[in-house]
């Protein structure tokens, strides 16, 4: 059984870079589902982070721009110092709203807007990270019918963030990175 989705959103902080290299590096070159990422530690400034990924993985990686239409087979990174949001018409928008959980970009803001935009056609994954940003976002995604996944805390470099979401009871599936790769490559359609 596969289920159809419009986007995959990912959030994390401490340890996320390593986790992403493994995850994104293992997805097939033609992986269609757009992947949209907020990382607290490595926010992207002038495309250096995108360059870093492009040298190492085969799916094209870009920094998300205000009002840019979201395209398939692309990984998008949140730029630094702005919140990244997804619009119901399938474009990005940025904003300067206050920090959320001391963070801008904030995972909560991305997840919450993605839930509102895509409803049950969204997968949200909370990965390794050291604070609680993202937990409310996971709740919103669930409220709108999306699929919520947390990285298995025991396998995460920093378990705090995925653990908080699991404890709050909002998580549908708890997966290691290998299980997540398996899930994304066999159970997901666009």
């Amino acid at each position: 059984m596969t289920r159809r989705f419009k986007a995959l959103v990912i959030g994390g902080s401490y340890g996320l870079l390593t986790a992403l290299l493994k995850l994104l590096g293992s997805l097939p070159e033609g992986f269609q589902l757009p992947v949209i990422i907020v990382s607290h530690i490595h926010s992207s400034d002038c495309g250096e982070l995108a360059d870093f990924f492009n040298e190492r993985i085969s799916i094209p990686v870009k920094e998300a721009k205000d009002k840019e239409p979201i395209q398939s087979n692309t990984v998008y990174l949140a730029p630094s110092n702005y919140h990244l949001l997804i619009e119901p018409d399938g474009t990005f928008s940025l904003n300067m709203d206050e920090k959320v959980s001391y963070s801008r970009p904030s995972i909560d803001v991305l997840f919450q807007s993605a839930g509102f935009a895509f409803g049950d056609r969204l997968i949200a994954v909370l990965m390794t990270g050291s604070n609680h940003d993202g937990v409310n976002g996971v709740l919103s995604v669930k409220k709108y019918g999306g699929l919520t996944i947390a990285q298995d805390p025991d396998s995460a470099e920093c378990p705090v963030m995925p653990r908080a979401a699991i404890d709050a009871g909002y998580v549908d599936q708890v997966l290691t990175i290998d299980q997540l790769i398996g899930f994304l490559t066999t159970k997901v359609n666009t």
Partner: protein
Amino acid sequence: MKPHQIEALEISLLLEAIYQRYGYDFRNYAAASIQRRITRFLLSSDRPSISALIPEVIHDPSFFQQLLLGLSITVTEMFRDPLMFKSLRETVLPFLNSFPSFKIWHAGCATGQEAYSLSILLEEEGLNHRATIYATDFNDEALDVARKGIYEKEHIQQYSENYVLSGGKRSFADYYHEKYDAVIMRKSLKERIIFANHNLATDSVFSEIHLIFCRNVLIYFDRELQKKVLNLFWDCLPYNGFLCLGTRESLAFSGLEDKFMPVDKKYKIFQKKEIQ
């Protein structure tokens, strides 16, 4: 209908009610940002749903005022993006120097820091007596703060650092005096700034402007409203007049890309092109 579609419907009815009742037009704001603001307001207002706000918004203007404040984000700084100000100093001000007098407009000035920053810059470059600065916003509370020019002392450290990075020639402390835990901007900086209420979504423009700042405002609009406002700017700029956007804003999805020339690509300073 799915839950997110029902919510989108509620928001669209609320925005329509606001527009018809009060004339404030949020219908072409970026939906995701507006949804976030309304959801936050809803949480603090203890009402069961977004549509439940509508009767009160219609019948109680003071309730609407609260909501209106909740919809406007006035986050700002002195010399935000210091290198943009440096670029202005080096490339734009020498150009303005060729005019006996010129006008500057800060559209969406929030609590005024951007306008005071520019006033400082003009003074240091000896251009202050030739300039008129209009600083406008649709948020009256923010404009009140801007007019007073009083800011919390806790931000001064960061403002000073920004000022230094922007190529400031003196000490930032020369431009304010302290009172209790606040700082008051020097009166002479205020003299050439005219603060006024102006709504970019619904109001037209008053005169020819040589340099327009509209930074971190357009990101709150959808593409259609961005385009409308950029056209408004185009209309009031003379050829070779300047437009400064926020560092993450662009003309790329507005259809006006060909009508402006980039002067500083990184810091989003553009110049209106002559018609070929």
